[in-house]
Each structure stands twice: as C-alpha cells, then as structure tokens.
C-alpha cells in the first residue's frame, strides 16, 4: 500500500545560534569574582586547536585507564565499570538459575529424596534473593552506567569514583552471601524473610544476618548509582538536548533511579530493624513487647512492590530502543510513553498492600489497593499500544533483538493479565502463596525483564565489543528460551489452582501434582539450556563475530556515533543535539561543540531542562581510594553481623578512606 509520507523537514534540525546553546553566565555572584571565571590557561591544549587522529590519540591518553592491577582497581571509566556490572549481574543470574534447576529436579517427582528441606529452603531463598537483589536491580543500573553517558553525549557518568565504589560494594556484598551459602550458613527464610520466622527465636545463628546485611550492601550501591543517574540525566546532557529529545531508554533509567531512591530506604529500614531484633534485642517485631510482625511486612513491601518496577522499567527502555531501531521509524507517542513511565513510577508506590491481602487487614483498605493495582494496567497498556503502533507504521527488521521483544510481548502481557487477577482480593485469597503466583511473577519478570535484556544484549553487543553476535545461534537461542520458558511456568498456574502452595520442598503423591511438576522440570532444563547457548554465543562472538562499525543497525541515538567499542573519551568532541534521533537527522556530519581540554578530563555541565551548556567541569581522575573505601565498608558491614561495635571500629577506617578519597591532590581536577 503506497502512501505519501511527509518528508522530515530538514529545517527542523538546523542548529540554533550558539547563544541558544549555552548560558554564558559567569560563576561569580554579581559584584564578586570567582576563580571559576578565570580565563582558560593559554598553554593548555583544547580540542578547537587540534583535529583528526592526533586529537583522538591525545584524548585516549587523557581519558584512558592505566594497565596493570592498580590501574584496573583505580579506573573510573564508566564503560569498564558498566561492563563489570553487567558481567557480574549475569554471573549472579547463572548462579540463581542453577539453584532453580536443582529445585526443579527435587520437585519433578513427589516425595523425591534428592535434597532435604534445609538445603531446599536455602536454595529457594538464594534463588529469589540473587535474582531480585543481585541481578534484577543491578542489571538495569549496569546498562545505565554503560549507556547513559554515550546516549546523552558526554564523556563519563556523574561522580565517577562513587561509581567505582558502588561496584565494589555490590560485588563484595553478593560474594559474601554466596560464600555464606557455600559454607552452609546461607539464609533459608525466603527472599522476603518474614518475621517471626526470620527473627531471633526461630532462626538462631547467623544465616538471616548475612541476608539482612547483604541488603545493606546492595542498597548502598543501588542508591549511589541511582543518584548518579539522576545527576547525569539533569546536568550532563549534550548541548541542545532538551527534555523532549532525551532517548526513551534514558527516561526509563531516570524513572527507575527515582524509584530506587525512594523505595530502597524502606527495605533497609526493615533489614536494620531485623538485625537489631536479632543482634541487640530490640522488639520492633515482637508482639509481646509492643512490636508487630506486620510492621515488617509493611516496610518490606513498601520497597517490594516498587522493586518489581525497578526491574521492569529499564526493560521498557530496552524495548523502546529496540522497537524504534528495528521498526525503522521514530517512536509513536513519545510523550505518552514518557508520561506512562513516570505515572508507573508514582503508582508503583501505592500498591504494596496487595502482597498482604490475606493478613486480615480491613477490607476497605484492601479495596483501595485493588483499585490501584488494577489501575497501573493503564500506563502499562499505553506503552504496549504505542509500541505496537510504532511497529505498525514501520518496516520491521526481524533480527534477534526484535525476536526477543516479540517474546516479551507474548509473555509479559500474559503475566500482566494474571496480575490483574491477583489484584482482586477474592481471587488472591485462593491463589496467594501458591504456584499460581510463582507462575505470574515469572511471567512478568522473565517476560518483562529477561527477554528484553537478552534482546538488549544482542542489540548493544556490537557497541560493547566491536563484534556482532551470531544471528543463527540467536534464533536458536530465542526459540529454545521461549518454548522452554512456557513449558516451565505455564503448568504452575494450574498446579497452584489445584492447591499446591509455594516454597514446598516436596508434595504427597496422592495430590495429583506430579505430572505438572515433571513437565515444569523438563521445561526448566530447556530454559537453562537456552542460557548455556546464549553464553556460547557471547563467548564465540566476542572472539570471532563479524566486525561491527560504529552503527551496524543504522540506529538514531548518540551512542552509535561513538566507535565500537567506544574509545575512553567516548566522543572526540561533544555532540550538539537538534533531534530526538540525532543520527537520523544528521546522517553525514555531526554538529559538535569544541573548546574542551585535551590534556585534562573535562565535561560540559548543562542546565536541567533546556540542555544549554553552562559549565565545563573537571571529571574525576582514576583513584584507588574507592576500592579501599569499599574494603573498609565491607569490613564494617560484615563485622556488624557479629557485634554492634563493628560500626565504631569499622567506621574509623571507612572515614579515613573517605578522607583519602576526597582530600584534594593538587591535580587539575581539584584545583579547577
């Protein structure tokens, strides 16, 4: 069907006058002088004085990471740290997946004696804890760390040393709990660790304390990165990138960051209260002394519900990016898509009681949460419809990233709809805490996060590594994953309705659940196999994949203007942005800003909404102090599992490392 398309008006992408692109405001208050306004040192080389390969080489030297172990531990390059985050999160995904495979082996037959209740309880706790805290939240942040500066047209993420510190803290916290598990002192009370089961009376020993302290580690890391994302979004955009030109993935990460900042403190409050009840005898959750077991649930789920949106919203960013590129058309409904994500972010804080519908709370209150839980389907629906519209008017390209997005649609929408069932108090009264709920949340989490994630890896792999992943293996991977997933989890809807509760290490033969469980186990093996295939594809492609140029998909956003993989400085000169899809608007020459230093690390700081260049700030240099501070923090946190005095004698080295971190060193960054 032929139709006339209005050609894109090139005049819309004319670069505005420089006065519209920068503020030109001095730093000193009126009547006072500021060192910031001192003219730049004439002997310092800037990028308006040098060009071509020489510019590139000098910038590589300035922004690069030193070789060797100290260099590696001191790096503040967001791409290196982002890659570490991604790889570490995937390692945790595999570990959590292995735990699940063992669980499924045990459940394949009734009264199977493969593993006993103690190990099984540890396994499902480690599975949930790893997937939610060590994979689900970090993976979204990991992609933000790598991609945001590239998509926003800057050279590093805000607070680059904090970035390094937060990665080490995340790594050490995750390692701590897995080491505890290997030593048979891993937690065994489920990923949400309800009291009184997790309290001092019914969980003696240190198992639950390791769980609770792991929360502290991941919360510190998570909030730190979230603050960095917010600051990078508002203050480090390329000149000309007004808010309505920000890529959809970046909006998703901004909303995600805000949810993290307001939700994570709730789980930390819950876990600190739990540790205190266990370690120093407080009574927050002890009904005999005025406490309440439900206080824990309220605090936990106030975090717990937004948590699943923390896992989902970055994935909507991946889907938006892939749908746009593989439809070969700009997004339909950019504004509704942005507003939907923001609305989802806000609404997600108003749903938490739907996890507590069976605790005997007043029905009037529960009704409110039914309404809000159903209402959140509307912004989700807006996103789905806008994506379908984009595909409708576009020219879909059926490569692996789009296949995984298709898988997302099939699976996530089904999961969302079973969620509407759970929002209803009466239906929830039957299926809460059964395998039906397990089916629901795997549909929304794997469908809603993991499938888009796999698509995102196939999409951005050329940017991370400079090579394409194998399309042939990709298609096999997709179908194995899609079929394996559905065979694993669909039967659980049925077994839940047939009365099978969750978190049971076995079941009686006369219950009639054996066949369904066997089918799920076979599917689980298939699903795990698909991940092995994925790993093979990643490893083989990294070495022998087809070499990719800067923009193998002919996408429109700024990260595709950098080389593949990007050089340490990201861009030789900071781009100037006139369109939501800069590389579709400027196909041959890129408008850029010049004047940043070549010898020292400098970035442009912009205004928050209009994206006008305001300052040229120094970006942090590499430093070993974040690593040392992370070690001191780890000692403090792990020590406090055993004695509260650890806060005092661990706090001191932490303070020392922080002083070392922040004390000016007389180099350019600090004296600027």
């Amino acid at each position, binding site marked *: 069907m032929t*139709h*006339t*398309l*209005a*050609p*894109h008006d090139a005049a819309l992408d004319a670069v505005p006058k420089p006065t519209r692109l920068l503020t030109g405001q001095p730093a000193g208050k009126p009547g006072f002088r500021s060192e910031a306004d001192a003219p730049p040192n004439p002997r310092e080389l800037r990028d308006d004085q040098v060009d071509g390969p020489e510019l590139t080489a000098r910038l590589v030297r300035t922004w690069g990471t030193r070789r060797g172990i100290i260099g590696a531990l001191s790096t503040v390059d967001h791409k290196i740290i982002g890659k570490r985050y991604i790889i570490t999160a995937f390692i945790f995904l595999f570990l959590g997946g292995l735990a699940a495979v063992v669980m499924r082996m045990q459940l394949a037959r009734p009264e199977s004696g493969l593993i006993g209740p103690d190990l099984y309880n540890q396994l499902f706790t480690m599975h949930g804890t790893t997937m939610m805290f060590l994979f689900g939240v970090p993976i979204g942040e990991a992609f933000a760390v790598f991609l945001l500066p590239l998509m926003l047209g800057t050279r590093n993420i805000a607070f680059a040393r904090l970035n390094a510190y937060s990665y080490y803290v995340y790594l050490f916290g995750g390692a701590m709990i897995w080491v505890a598990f290997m030593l048979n002192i891993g937690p065994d009370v489920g990923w949400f660790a*309800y009291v*009184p*089961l997790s309290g001092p009376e*019914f969980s003696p020993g240190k198992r639950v304390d390791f769980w609770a302290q792991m929360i502290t580690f991941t919360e510190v890391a998570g909030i730190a990165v979230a603050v960095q994302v917010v600051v990078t979004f508002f203050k480090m955009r390329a000149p000309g990138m007004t808010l309505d030109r920000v890529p959809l993935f970046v909006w998703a990460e901004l909303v995600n960051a805000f949810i993290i900042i307001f939700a994570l403190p709730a789980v930390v409050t819950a876990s600190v209260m739990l540790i205190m009840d266990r370690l120093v005898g407080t009574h927050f959750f002890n009904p005999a002394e005025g406490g*309440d*077991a*439900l206080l824990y649930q309220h605090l936990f789920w106030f975090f717990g519900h937004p948590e699943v949106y923390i896992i989902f919203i970055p994935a909507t960013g991946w889907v938006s990016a892939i749908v746009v590129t593989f439809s*070969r*058309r*700009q997004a339909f*409904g950019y504004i509704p898509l942005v507003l939907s994500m923001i609305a989802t972010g806000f609404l997600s804080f108003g749903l938490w009681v739907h996890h507590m519908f*069976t*605790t*005997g709370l007043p*029905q009037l209150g529960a009704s409110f949460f*039914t*309404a809000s839980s*159903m209402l959140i389907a*509307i912004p989700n629906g807006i996103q789905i*419809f806008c994506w*379908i*519209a984009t*595909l*409708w*008017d*576009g*020219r*879909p390209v059926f490569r692996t990233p789009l296949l995984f997005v*298709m898988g997302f*649609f099939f699976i996530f*929408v*089904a999961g969302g*709809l079973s969620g509407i*069932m759970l929002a*209803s*108090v*009466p*239906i929830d*009264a*039957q299926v809460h*805490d*059964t395998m039906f709920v397990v089916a629901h949340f795997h549909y929304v989490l794997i469908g809603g996060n993991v499938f888009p994630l796999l698509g995102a890896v196939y999409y951005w792999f050329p940017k991370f590594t400079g090579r394409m992943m194998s399309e042939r293996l990709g298609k096999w991977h997709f179908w194995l994953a899609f079929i394996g997933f559905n065979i694993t989890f669909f039967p659980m809807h*049925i077994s839940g*309705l*047939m*009365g099978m*509760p969750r978190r049971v290490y*076995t*079941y*009686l033969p006369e*219950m009639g659940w054996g066949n*369904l469980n066997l089918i799920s186990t076979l599917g689980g093996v298939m699903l795990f196999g698909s991940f092995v295939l994925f790993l093979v594809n990643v490893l083989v492609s990294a070495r022998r994949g087809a070499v990719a140029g800067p923009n193998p998909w002919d996408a429109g956003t700024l990260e595709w203007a950098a080389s593949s993989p990007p050089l340490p400085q990201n861009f030789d000169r900071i781009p100037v942005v006139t369109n939501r*899809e800069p590389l579709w*608007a400027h196909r041959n020459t890129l408008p850029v800003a010049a004047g940043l230093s070549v010898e020292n690390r400098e970035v442009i700081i912009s205004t928050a909404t209009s994206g006008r260049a305001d300052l040229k700030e120094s970006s942090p240099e590499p430093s070993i102090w974040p690593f040392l501070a992370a070690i001191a923090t780890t000692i403090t946190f792990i020590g406090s599992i055993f004695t509260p005095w650890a806060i005092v004698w661990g706090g001191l080295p932490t303070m020392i490392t922080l002083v070392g971190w922040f004390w000016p060193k007389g180099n350019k960054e600090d004296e600027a």
Partner: protein
Amino acid sequence: MKRTSFVLLLSVSLAGCQGWQSALDAHGPAARTLADMFWIFTAVLGTVWVLTLGALLLALRRRRAAGTDPLATNPAIERRMTVVVSTAIGMTFLTVLALTGISYGGQRVLYGHKDGTLTLLVTGRQWWWQIMYEDPQPNRVFTTANEIHIPVGEPVLIKLESADVIHSFWIPNLTGKMDAITGRQNQIQIQADRPGVYRGQCAEFCGLQHAHMGMLVIAETKEDFERWRNNQIASAKPPSNPEQQRGMEIFLSKPCVMCHQIRGTDAGGKIAPDLTHVGSRRYIAAGTLETTRGNIAAWIIDPHGIKPGVNMPTIQLEPDEVQPLVSFLEGLK
C-alpha cells in the same frame, strides 16, 4: 501431532478442575463465588491477550516502503493511530473498572459475616494445626489436631492464631485463605454445601516442614457431626485388651507424656497434638501419613526420616514395645 498436543494440554489444564485441594472444585458457597470470578476474569483477560497479540502480529506484517526516511511521518496515519490507541486505552480503563467492580462484589461475599452456631479456635504451630471446639458450656469444649469436622450447610467461624511463626489456613474447596499471625487473631468463615472430605494445607512458609503441614476438613450431616462431636468430647476409651493395656503403660512411661495429652489418662502435655482420639483421624503427622499401623509405627520410630526437622524427638523403643503401643494408639478412636 498438533491435535495430540492440544488434547494433552487441555486434559492437563482440566485436571485442575477436580481434586480434593483444588480451588476450582468448589464445595461451598464462597469457593463457588471465587471459582466463578476466576473463570470470568480468565475469559475477559484471555480475550484481551488474544486481541493484543493479534494486533502485534498484524503490525508485523504491515511494512513501510524500503528506504523511507525513519523520521518521516504521515499526518493522516498518525491521526488514525492516535484514535486507535486512545480507544484501546479507553477500553482498557473500562475493562479494569468492570473487573474492579466484580472484585468488590466477590469481596463482600467472601468476607461478609454470617451467623452460625459453631466456633473453632485454630492455632497454627510448627508444623501442625491445633483445633479447639468452643462451646458455651465449658465441659463441652475439646481440643483435637489436624482434622476438622463441620456440619453441612452452616457457616462455621474459625478464629486463627499462631503459637510461633506466621502460618496460613487454606481449604481451597471451601474458601480463600487467611493468615495466622503471631500476636493477633484473624477470623475466617467456612461453609460446605455437601458432605465430603476436603484437604487443606498451610500456605505461608513457616520453616522446615511447611510442605507437610496439611489438614482435613470433613463435612457431614448434622446428626453425624453431633455424634462425632460427642465422641470427641468424651475421654479416651480405656484399653480393650491386654495388648492395648501394655501399650498404654508404655506410652505413659515414655517421654510422650511431656508433649501429648490423652484425656482420661495422666498424659497431659499441651505442646503437641492431642491424641485422645487419634485413632479416629484419617491422617497423622498433619496430613502426611494415613493412619495405619505401619505408619503409626514408622512415625514413632523415625519422625525425622519422614519430616526432617520436626519437633518430635526420636523415642527409644524396644522391638517388643512397638506392636502394643501401636495397638493402643490405633484404638484411641
């Protein structure tokens, strides 16, 4: 091949419609309402899924001309898509509103209080259910474990408490679940409309043997129920033969009496299931083993082999003590 797999899928799905712990096999008014609601939601939401995925598949087949500028748009198409998307959003809103209304209706049925004559106090414990039948006359109050009998056709009020951690009381054939939370008392009403045996299970993770914390609810006619209740109120029948007599002596000489009660004997322990009429129950160990001689023996000799982590210690028995003890317990009907 396709037909076989369809039939297989259908039979697997439909298998859930019957079963003694199935939420879709309703034997009481509340469960019936819930099952109906479930089917309504499934039908509506299933249709939504089909329509959405259908639109997606159609969208994939429609293609712009090759080489089109990705930034180009056709204002007429944009307008049309805006109308379609807005309509879809409007329909989503109306669907959600309707389902919310249906949900509120179901909520009223589920939690509406109806007057009945029978009240139970059920206390969840790691890993069994303590059941006390309340009565205005104190001498008609009695305690049993893991097996509830109710008269058909009447609402029965159950007060739920917990002695240790959070448990959840769930009899899917009759109604939704309600948590038993330490430090507070919740209430739930159950009603069966036909006689039958309905199984339930703890539905809140409560530790090592959460998987083996089942119970039975047996609905019977009013006369049968009264007969059962009067029998339960009575103290334990005295042993009817020398073997049972010997069994009783063994029981009373072992640590059993520290935890278990048998009314009419000196055994007065209150922290384990009441054994006064254990022989009349169909299952022991909280719905784990059928009450047979072999199972009773196995449970006493090796509780940790059957329910690892259970609070019952292993009792040392001489080989010639097993049969009499089992005969005694089996005879406590």
